């Protein structure tokens, strides 16, 4: 087997273990729960205790934790991902739509954030120590200390006050009556606030890392040599130095998925974007246990896909990885 395949295989096994670990962990936590969805029903005098008990046993809530975990695994194998008490349907139906919306939001935000962060970081590294660099580092520090919640609320305030954009949800109420272009532009208009918030929130960390690893790369002798040969500044920066600095940045890409997802949860709730975030929050309030577990698993899957993507990119970008892990 080729060494790179072996490396990927190891990463895949690792990912599978992480998934199992996350699911076991969420079930352990759910086992700690003193109440359940049906406890709220007990307070209702119109529902008899027998009915509640029957419902509990129907959904297997009266069984021990390992048994419940086994049943859940079976339902995952059937592709149902458990059953939502509040929505009265398999969790999968809820997850697919919501996960798609979250995916749209986060991939867009991540792409934009990197597209903005790389040039700024490279530029700051190039002007290392001068006023442009100091300006960048001051503004990233300032931006870093504004929590996502405040960013989202502030942007929402601006948008509502200026009436510039539609607010709340993913589409306007007249979405179905719009043409194809109308629908696309309506969706884009609704995306602007959440995406801007996420981009602003993730920029400072990305810029700092790009700058730091570029500064390190620029100190390498081969960069001096390239400069000595009279190769143009832009070409040195982007063609020679950036690939040399890419390695830690690719790892950062894998790691940043988790914080992006956390940020996205908050932004979705604040701006009313119908993603995984609002679903999880509703499930928290109604104690819809399998939805909570399902959403956590979905976010874990996103995270793992992100880090696998980073692994593959690392493999493509750095020959040392291909050899070292043989």
């Amino acid at each position, binding site marked *: 087997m080729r060494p790179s395949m072996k490396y990927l295989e190891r990463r895949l096994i690792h990912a599978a273990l*992480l998934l199992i*670990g*996350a699911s076991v*962990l*969420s079930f352990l*936590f*759910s086992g*700690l*729960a*003193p*109440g359940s969805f049906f406890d709220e029903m007990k307070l209702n005098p119109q529902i008899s205790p027998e009915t509640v008990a029957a419902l509990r046993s129907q959904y297997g809530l009266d069984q021990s934790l390992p048994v419940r975990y086994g049943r859940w695994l079976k339902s995952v194998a059937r592709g149902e991902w458990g059953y939502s008490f509040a929505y009265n349907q398999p969790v999968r139906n809820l997850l697919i739509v919501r996960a798609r919306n979250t995916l749209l939001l986060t991939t867009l935000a991540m792409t934009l954030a990197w597209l903005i962060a790389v040039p700024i970081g490279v530029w700051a590294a190039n002007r290392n120590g001068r006023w442009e660099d100091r300006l960048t580092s001051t503004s990233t*520090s*300032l931006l*870093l*200390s*504004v*929590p996502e*919640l*405040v960013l989202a*609320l*502030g942007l*929402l*305030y601006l948008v*509502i*006050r200026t009436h510039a954009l539609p607010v709340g949800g993913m589409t306007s109420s007249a979405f179905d009556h719009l043409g194809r272009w109308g629908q696309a532009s309506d969706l884009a208009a609704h995306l602007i606030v959440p995406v801007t918030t996420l981009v602003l929130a993730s920029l400072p960390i990305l810029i700092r890392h790009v700058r730091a690893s570029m500064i390190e790369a620029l100190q390498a002798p081969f960069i001096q040599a390239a400069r000595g040969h009279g190769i143009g500044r832009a070409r040195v920066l982007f063609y020679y130095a950036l690939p040399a600095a890419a390695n830690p940045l690719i790892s950062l890409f894998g790691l940043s998925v*988790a*914080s992006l*997802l*956390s*940020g996205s*949860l*908050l932004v979705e*709730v604040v701006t009313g974007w119908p993603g995984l975030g609002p679903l*999880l*929050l509703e*499930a*928290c*309030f109604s*104690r819809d*246990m399998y939805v*909570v*577990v399902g*959403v*956590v698993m979905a*976010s*874990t899957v996103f*995270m*793992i896909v992100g*880090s696998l993507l980073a692994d593959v990119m690392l493999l493509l970008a750095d020959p040392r990885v291909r050899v070292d892990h043989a």
Partner: protein
Amino acid sequence: MTSKRKVVAAVIFLLALHLAILLAGFISPYQPATQNRDFPYLPPTHLHFVDARGHLHFRPFIYQSVARPDSLYEYTEDREHAYPVHFFVSGFEYKIAGWFPSRTHWFGVDAPAQIFLAGTDGYGRDQFSRILFGGQISLAAGLLATVISLLLGLCVGCASGFYGGWIDESAMRLAELFLVLPWLYVLLAVRAFLPLHISPAQTFLLLVAVIGTIGWARPARLVRGIVLSAKSRKYVTASRGFGASDAYILRRHVLPHTYGTLLTQAAVLVPQYVIAEVTLSFFGLGLSEPMPSWGNLLANLQQYNVLVSYWWMFAPALALVLISLGYLAVANAFQQRLQSGSI
């Protein structure tokens, strides 16, 4: 600025913020729960220095606000009578830092006028006082949760790095799991499985415990790394040769190496945890109404009309940003000194 100056400046800024919040009773003119039903959503009171005849006053004065008879939530200033701002006035009784009873307040105005530096909320409660008192709760939550995280991290990290073997292996795999999961999802999921309807004090402790426990992994990993490098030093081997016990070596030769990192981690974690509390309370899963916290105060902004019409309801966000800014500056400065090896 040299790195030492930076540390000092950042620490002083943070201490001032903490002192202001600790002395909330002294600085705030009114009790956080006192309602003024006649003045809902009153904008921040203007401080005037120039009176109607154009004379300059060094002592600022205010005019009493009166509701406009023709419309709701709109106010004008009654320019008939000026109320100068007095310092060290007597007001409601409070305890300095939770201990010594006192009635002296930093500033105030004579009745019937009232001074609302950050406006009022929907019940006419003074936002300025609520931000200060709410800060006590939010900051206490952040600090306590940080202590929990660091203690857990220190214990696990020491055990893991010092003893190695299966303890190390299993602890680090678990840490990996906690590190890769998106923390807000985990936080909400754990909160989802805990009771919703409990007393405020219980909620507070529960919240602190949950936030602190979830964050154990990063400090544990860092401590483990330091312990690993420290225990391979020659003086550790030497003291082991002299018959020192594990506990002695840990306490005497290993732990002192972790202090710098722990301090830096604390500066990183406190604002994160304050924000975690704010987020949960904002969602309605944290502390509930009678208790002011920055999350509760910000939760007012969930109402559309509040978000749009009353900009001063954003004031708690400013407090949050200032605290994060201070801690970040301290964390950066610590980090720089840690890297140059002088902490």
